């Protein structure tokens, strides 16, 4: 067990938040504070560092209970505005997934498909207070005899609507390029042939899991900013890979940790849950997510001082390698280089573009900072930390 000069507990920090005395800074601000004052002084001074990310996050969706307006039916198939929801849960419990397209969507039959409306758009429309067309079909039972219900509903009509995202907030991600001679339409956006552009998708030094790379403060029960409201970390997400190779300061050199998160949809905001259409790929949802990192000791001050220069991102070919299941890295670049607008691959200057909004990630970190500074948001102490790996340093 490391011996620290600064030792704070979640309870002590929450006490400070309650009395309005907590010092809260964003992950961007923390970089300069640690550079100026050193880790120990920074840890004494700062109690919480806020992070943020706003980007398309597949593996998102919502559990919805249709009642009490929808009764007498054991719904077997359900559509919201023509988008199928999974109804194999209970009579009127469904799950609407962000990447589900409309039933009659032409998909990629006219290539590249536009995927203009899907589950993410349904969630955004519900949050915006719009009316959504609900269709439920059933085979009929003695206790639930109805076979079809069609209704216009709003979020207010639904007694239960809970965002529950099995995989969000990726810790680092690939930078996608295309080395082939044809345009590639991928989930990383449209990639021009012969290294015409490079797309990346992380908020760098603001990324939640990059500010606590070994998940020393994050786990089941961590309270977070989710979709403009308050949410919680349930557990590690699907495809959580803490064993990814790391730099000396513990930053994974590629995709690593992920989170499964949840929150009451009714207190969220359509600004932070936005349906998106990815040309030739499908629909999804952009999710706003932010995590407060408690500065329990000087190590957490060091961890949260991670800067764009410290973050290494693998460059992967989505033209041939990725579809072939090859995890080959063409090169490795820093997030600072990606942010500069161009990177060099094999001597070629390649323009870079993000899929993840840095300016909105910063906005989330600032909102979370304000919530905590105002004493409106307390830290949730995790009941169990996420699976991790032994630390380098």
């Amino acid at each position: 067990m490391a011996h620290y000069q600064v030792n704070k507990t979640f309870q002590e920090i929450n006490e400070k938040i309650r009395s309005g005395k907590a010092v809260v800074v964003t992950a961007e601000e923390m970089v300069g504070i640690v550079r100026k004052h050193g880790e120990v002084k920074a840890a004494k001074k700062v109690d919480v560092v806020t992070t943020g990310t706003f980007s398309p996050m597949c593996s998102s969706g919502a559990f919805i209970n249709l009642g009490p307006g929808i009764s007498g039916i054991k719904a077997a198939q359900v559509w919201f505005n023509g988008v199928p929801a999974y109804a194999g849960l209970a009579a009127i419990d469904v799950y609407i997934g962000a990447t589900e397209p409309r039933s009659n969507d032409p998909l990629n039959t006219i290539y590249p498909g536009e995927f203009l409306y899907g589950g993410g758009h349904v969630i955004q429309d519900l949050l915006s207070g719009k009316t959504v067309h609900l269709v439920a079909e059933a085979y009929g039972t003695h206790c639930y005899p109805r076979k079809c219900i069609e209704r216009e509903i709003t979020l207010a009509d639904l007694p239960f609507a809970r965002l529950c995202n099995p995989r969000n907030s990726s810790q680092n991600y690939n930078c996608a390029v295309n080395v082939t001679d044809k345009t590639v339409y991928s989930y990383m956006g449209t990639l021009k042939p012969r290294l015409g552009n490079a797309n990346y998708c992380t908020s760098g030094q603001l990324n939640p899991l990059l500010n606590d790379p070994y998940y020393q403060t994050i786990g089941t029960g961590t309270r977070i900013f989710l979709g403009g409201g308050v949410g919680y970390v349930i557990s590690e997400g699907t495809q959580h890979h803490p064993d990814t190779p790391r730099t000396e300061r513990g930053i994974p050199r590629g995709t690593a940790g992920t989170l499964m998160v949840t929150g009451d949809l009714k207190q969220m905001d359509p600004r932070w849950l936005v349906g998106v259409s990815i040309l030739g790929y499908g629909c999804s949802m952009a999710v706003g997510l932010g995590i407060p990192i408690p500065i329990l000791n000087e190590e957490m001050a060091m961890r949260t001082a991670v800067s764009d220069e410290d973050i290494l991102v693998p460059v992967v070919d989505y033209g041939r390698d990725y579809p072939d299941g090859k995890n080959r890295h063409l090169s490795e670049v820093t997030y600072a280089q990606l942010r500069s607008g161009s990177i060099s691959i094999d001597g070629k200057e390649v323009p870079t573009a993000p899929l993840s909004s840095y300016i909105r990630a910063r906005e989330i970190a600032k909102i979370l900072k304000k919530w905590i500074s105002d004493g409106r948001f307390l830290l949730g102490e995790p009941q169990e930390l996420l699976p991790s790996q032994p630390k380098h340093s």
Partner: protein
Amino acid sequence: MYKKMLVLRFPAEITDKPLICTLSRRLDLCFNILKAKILPGREGLMVLELSGHKNQVNEGLRYLKAQGVRVKPVEQEIRRNNDICIQCGVCTGICPTHALHMNRETMEVIFDPNRCSGCELCMAICPVRAMEIQFSTDKVLV
């Protein structure tokens, strides 16, 4: 060199006239046609860059209007719907003229309609379809 990026709309009666050729021959103007199509009602739509001496360009515009062509600068035909733009920036890697670009300091995504050539690449690339281009949504059947 004076340059104008224009959207021209030709009424059905004049789509068979070689007006652009006249611009070049008579007024010594340079042109670059980025898009040209004839709609089912026989009206013509063209996106064109016109360059030359300022007086000559303006003379050319007067000539086109006198022939019945409706002329509009491209920047008046294109806008970003800022209410739905999520400021991701993916458009900036595709935009050939850097009309869509990023302020590297703030990472704000900026749209400068004056640099837009009306290529429409951004329209389907934008995940929330925030780019609105008037001439691509013109009614085809009149």
